[in-house]
């Protein structure tokens, strides 16, 4: 039985704005699930509906199989960490952490003991008498977590808890959050707009876009087998390269180049003679001609390098090929729903990127050949945007 399950959860604001559209999601006991998507995708709304802070337009929220739609947030036994921490500024750290326990009329001794152990677990023991204004951002974040864990909740919600921290601290706190999660073992729903956070933290990740669930899967699955164009573009940094292509005689026609499909041919059989969108991740492009395995399959892509960025650990080569770039924005333009300037797209300096070894000798202006494993290619239906599998 799932600790949290959402059924066709929908939110329409009184202005008519649809924030969430039929979200189905289940979180197992002890699981860490991340809701990720660009801002305005409805992820925070979904989380707040689970907490009970937002009214439900339609659909259900259930904990352990019990529908809690009509249960007040006070009695749902959920703890939440807010984006801006929502600490009580006039109370000390100890009072902040213990506030919920005083409401439950828990005896003073037990309360103090629980506050102390929560504080100790988060490294706040020396700060118990400070007020929030006297704490650093990272310490406030810990207090917010302490306030949540001291209640030993059955459901743990976090709304972009790390977004107000600086980059270094954010990386450090990721593992801290996971450690706390392991320790309390509650089903956790974690909202973020940062796909790196989602990939590194989530047992499973739900990708939301415009209020609609795009894919709900493990990070590995999301990365390797994106369900549609949006997920393909959103997950992975740098982004996947996407091009308009067509299938002809067992080969993929990409501009003036033809790539042997090899094992991927069977999947594309229904699309023979038709257009598809083909994608390849920057790290799946290998420099120095085709590798041995690829040579057998005959997949090689020739491109003109325009810009090279050296990052130290890797090198990014921005290149151009004569196929039209595709993707969510380009797709929308094709459907005539946005006024994309086609001329601008054509004149673009580069339309692809490869992630290369930092020692590879590649210079702007060079024509290079990338080796591609056809099994690493992704294909999408140009009409629906869905993955072809």
């Amino acid at each position, binding site marked *: 039985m799932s600790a949290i399950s959402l059924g066709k959860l929908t939110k329409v604001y009184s202005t008519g704005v649809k924030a969430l*559209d039929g979200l189905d999601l289940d979180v197992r006991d002890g699981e860490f699930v991340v809701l990720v998507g660009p801002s305005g995708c409805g992820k925070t709304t979904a989380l707040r509906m689970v907490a009970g802070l937002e009214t439900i337009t339609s659909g259900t929220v259930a904990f352990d199989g019990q529908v809690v739609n009509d249960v007040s947030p006070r009695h749902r036994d959920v703890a939440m960490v807010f984006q801006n921490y929502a600490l009580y500024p006039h109370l000390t750290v100890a009072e902040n952490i213990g506030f919920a326990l005083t409401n439950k009329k828990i005896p003073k001794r037990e309360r103090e003991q629980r506050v102390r152990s929560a504080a100790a677990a988060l490294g706040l023991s020396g700060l118990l008498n400070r007020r929030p204004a006297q704490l650093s951002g990272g310490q406030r974040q810990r207090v917010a977590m302490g306030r949540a864990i001291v209640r030993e909740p059955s459901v743990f919600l976090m709304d972009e808890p790390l977004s107000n921290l600086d980059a270094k601290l954010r990386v450090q706190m990721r593992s801290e959050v996971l450690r706390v999660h392991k320790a309390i073992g509650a089903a956790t729903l974690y909202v973020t707009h940062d796909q790196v956070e989602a990939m590194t933290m989530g047992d499973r990740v739900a990708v939301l*876009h415009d209020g609609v669930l795009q*894919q709900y*899967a493990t990070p590995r699955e999301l990365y390797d087998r994106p369900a*549609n164009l949006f997920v393909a573009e959103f997950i992975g940094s740098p982004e996947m390269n996407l091009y308009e292509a067509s299938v002809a005689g067992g080969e993929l026609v990409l501009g003036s180049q033809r790539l042997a499909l090899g094992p991927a041919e069977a999947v594309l059989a229904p699309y023979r003679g038709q257009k598809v969108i083909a994608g390849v991740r920057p790290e799946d492009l290998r420099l120095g001609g085709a590798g041995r395995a690829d040579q057998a399959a005959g997949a090689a892509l020739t491109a003109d390098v325009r810009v090279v960025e050296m990052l130290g650990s890797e090198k990014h080569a921005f290149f151009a090929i004569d196929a039209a770039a595709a993707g*969510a924005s380009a797709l929308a333009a094709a459907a005539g729903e946005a006024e994309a300037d086609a001329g601008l797209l054509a004149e673009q300096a580069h339309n692809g990127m490869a992630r290369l070894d930092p020692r590879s000798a590649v210079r702007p202006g060079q024509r290079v050949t990338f080796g591609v494993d056809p099994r690493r290619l992704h294909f999408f239906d140009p009409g629906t*945007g869905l993955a072809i599998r």
Partner: protein
Amino acid sequence: MSAPPLSAPPPARPRAQTRRERRRRERLERQDAAIPVELYGLRRGTLTALTACCVLFAVFILAPVVWVIINSTKTQANIFESFGFWFAAPFEFFHTFANLFRDVDGDGTYSQWFLNTVLYSVSGGIGATVLAALGGYGFARFEFRGSKVFFAVIIAGLLVPITLIAVPLYLAYAKVHLINSIWGMILPSMVSPVGLYLMRTYVELSIPRELTDAARIDGASEPRIFFRIALPLMVPGVMTVLLLSVAGTWNNYILPLIIFSDNNLYPVTVGMGLWSQHASNSGDANLYPLIVMGGLVTIIPMIALFALLQRYWRGGLLLGSVAN
């Protein structure tokens, strides 16, 4: 795992939105932004009980206003004899209203006082607002020799009782012939330390420094920056200060009481105070209906003005925030 097709991008915002639609939308957005009442976990009846408390206090607030409206229709005898919160024949409203334009008791004419009050409060209020806007912007955006000291002195001015100023003003006016001069009333009404403080707060909170700096880099002169960049952004703050200073002068009693001896220069407040004094001394002049009617006519414009300008009202300014 099934995946839905890409949803269509959100529909483009309708270009022409009427003001009514926008207001409706804003109201709904506010409604969505408020925490739903159910979440407070109230017992049944709490909402009703609290509403009853609020209504009870509203009755307390409205009682004198309702009394004035009802009794503005009565004769002097009925004002005293009949039940205060209901009408009594004869209906004297228009007769009494007409008397506002006559000098009934030799004390002066209400209509004259009313015009005086409008003159004093509009000119004093506008003057105070202009000075406060210029000064508040100056203190918020510039640092010059003594600026800190000047500002501290102005803030200290908040603490000075009006009486402390009114008595010496009277003495000074006697020397420079400002007794019974409208300038003796209007010029002091332009001093508004509160207004200056509010304007400075408003400029600091609502006009980003980058904006004025950018204009400066673009080569705009300081007056131009003020009038073309800052002032349009200061409108809500300016309106608040205008409202406060007009109301302040409209209410002023002690200064005109001291500096005017000519009844024709009185503002409404002093004139009605005088009526009240005479009415209690000699009951035969039928002054009470006039006092009631005068009260009604005095408060209507201010209530109307506040209703009209309330969307500019930034009460939060007094707290150093720009919230409404």
